[in-house]
């Protein structure tokens, strides 16, 4: 576990350099909202391969990594670009042509797996799933209630990402992390992962965290690395600072368009040069 009294600040480049090929990464946010997209683009620039991506509702992030050939496996609930953009085209092709292995979940079964890891138990019951083909597909077990209610419950094995990567609003140098608006699934991701990396829009003074500690979603002692990348969730949103850049997502979706050109327009390049 990380320490709580030393600076964890580094550049995005240094942060991504700590990710080995084949790492299992849980990515925070949901669809085009508050995803660690600058981090994902830097994975591509550093040519990471064989990654496992874990996220209940990935979209642009997983699609981009599939487009660049960085993914070996995805464990996901629902994958789409969302907004008014529909399916994630490069992800879809990667599954259809078997370039990647998909472990299809319900969002809540993936969460149950993360909870099993977070709670330190060998499996976690998950409500529902009755009548679905997903449990058989994934080889999940169904247990009878040992306390005699007569209910059967599906149990999900632990899912422990190597690294949870969270895009946050504010962070301090020790890693205390604040998110405004919904934190989606980021809390359970941070508790289930072996390590936590935080990319944040801006640094905030430690004093402000002491004034409102209940606003801290992830305490710094759980965080291993911190990078500050303004606009890093581009072309998605980061509430309440900026919204989805719809023209840029549209341009990304143009199959004749260039991935390099899209990556070259990213705001973190300015940061990387400075950092």
């Amino acid at each position, binding site marked *: 576990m990380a320490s709580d009294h030393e600076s964890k600040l580094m550049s995005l480049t240094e942060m991504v350099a700590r990710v080995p090929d084949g790492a299992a990464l849980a990515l925070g946010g949901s*669809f085009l*909202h508050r995803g660690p997209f600058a981090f994902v683009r830097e994975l591509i620039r550093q040519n990471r391969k064989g990654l496992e991506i874990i996220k209940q509702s990935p979209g642009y992030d997983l699609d981009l990594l599939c487009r660049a050939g960085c993914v070996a496996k995805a464990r996901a*609930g629902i994958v789409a670009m969302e907004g008014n953009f529909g*399916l994630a085209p490069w992800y879809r092709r990667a599954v259809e042509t078997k370039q990647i292995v998909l472990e*299809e979940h319900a969002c*809540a079964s993936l969460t149950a797996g993360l909870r099993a890891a977070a709670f330190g138990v060998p499996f976690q019951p998950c409500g529902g799933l*009755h009548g679905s083909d*997903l449990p058989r597909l994934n080889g999940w077990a169904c247990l009878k209630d040992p306390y005699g209610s007569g209910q059967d419950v599906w149990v999900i094995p632990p899912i422990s990402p190597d690294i949870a990567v969270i895009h946050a609003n504010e962070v301090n140098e020790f890693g205390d992390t604040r998110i405004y*608006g919904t934190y989606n699934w980021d809390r359970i991701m941070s508790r289930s992962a072996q390590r936590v990396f935080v990319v944040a829009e801006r640094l905030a003074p430690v004093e402000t965290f002491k004034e409102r500690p209940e606003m801290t979603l992830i305490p710094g002692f759980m965080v291993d690395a911190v990078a500050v990348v303004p606009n890093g969730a581009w072309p998605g949103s980061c509430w309440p600072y900026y919204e989805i850049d719809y023209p840029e997502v549209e341009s990304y979706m143009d199959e004749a368009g260039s991935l390099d050109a899209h990556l070259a327009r990213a705001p973190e390049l300015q940061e990387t040069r400075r950092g």
Partner: protein
Amino acid sequence: MAEWSGFSYIVTNLARFIRPHEVTFSGVNSTLPMLACLLAKRAYDFEFVYINVAGGVQPTPSKIPLSSSDPVLSEGSTAIFANEDFYDLCTRGRMDLCFLGAAQVDGLGRTNVSTIGDWHNPKVRLPGGGGGAVMLPTARRAVTWRTEHSKRTLVETLDFVTAAGGMHGVVTPLAVFVKREGRLVLQSWHPERSLDEVVARTGFAVDARGAEPTPPPTPREIDALRSLDPQGQFERDARISIG
């Protein structure tokens, strides 16, 4: 008599499933249910608890987003009810009405959002499990919609059963189905189309006993939808043709 478009038919008939004082949820990839919930707030005189995937609890968004998970949908909330919260609410039986997406629906109200073709050799890889497999069997009522009414969307046999359980209603541009005694039955159909057409374009056997033409949109429903989509962008994006 006021006329329906495919778009207004789906949004308004989704809204008509919302009941007073209940907890009603709209999720990701669910622009039409999001509009239905906001329409019900503007067109109906009763209160209900609207929660959404953006963490919103009774939100008063300053604008209507293209993405149904946009954080603007938590504006005006007095709480943030994050993803684990609304799933747990549902699995413990406290979610009254849940809108869930589907690519295929069968006559039992089961859904496929996973694959067209064999799961292991897909012709089309679809978005996947999402909320359905857990929410459909555990919500008190679930309602889905299809923007295309055809034998490839309303099917006799699903390519894959992503979710099964408590489907209460299905809305297409042509018809409204509800579940009765374990099967989907026709509740009403588009008043400018025929019952024969509904039967001919549905892949599962249509039980039309007691069904009637859908009542026209009320002036308040029409005004509410117009206020939510004044430029017609949502209607254009939805690309709904009755066919």
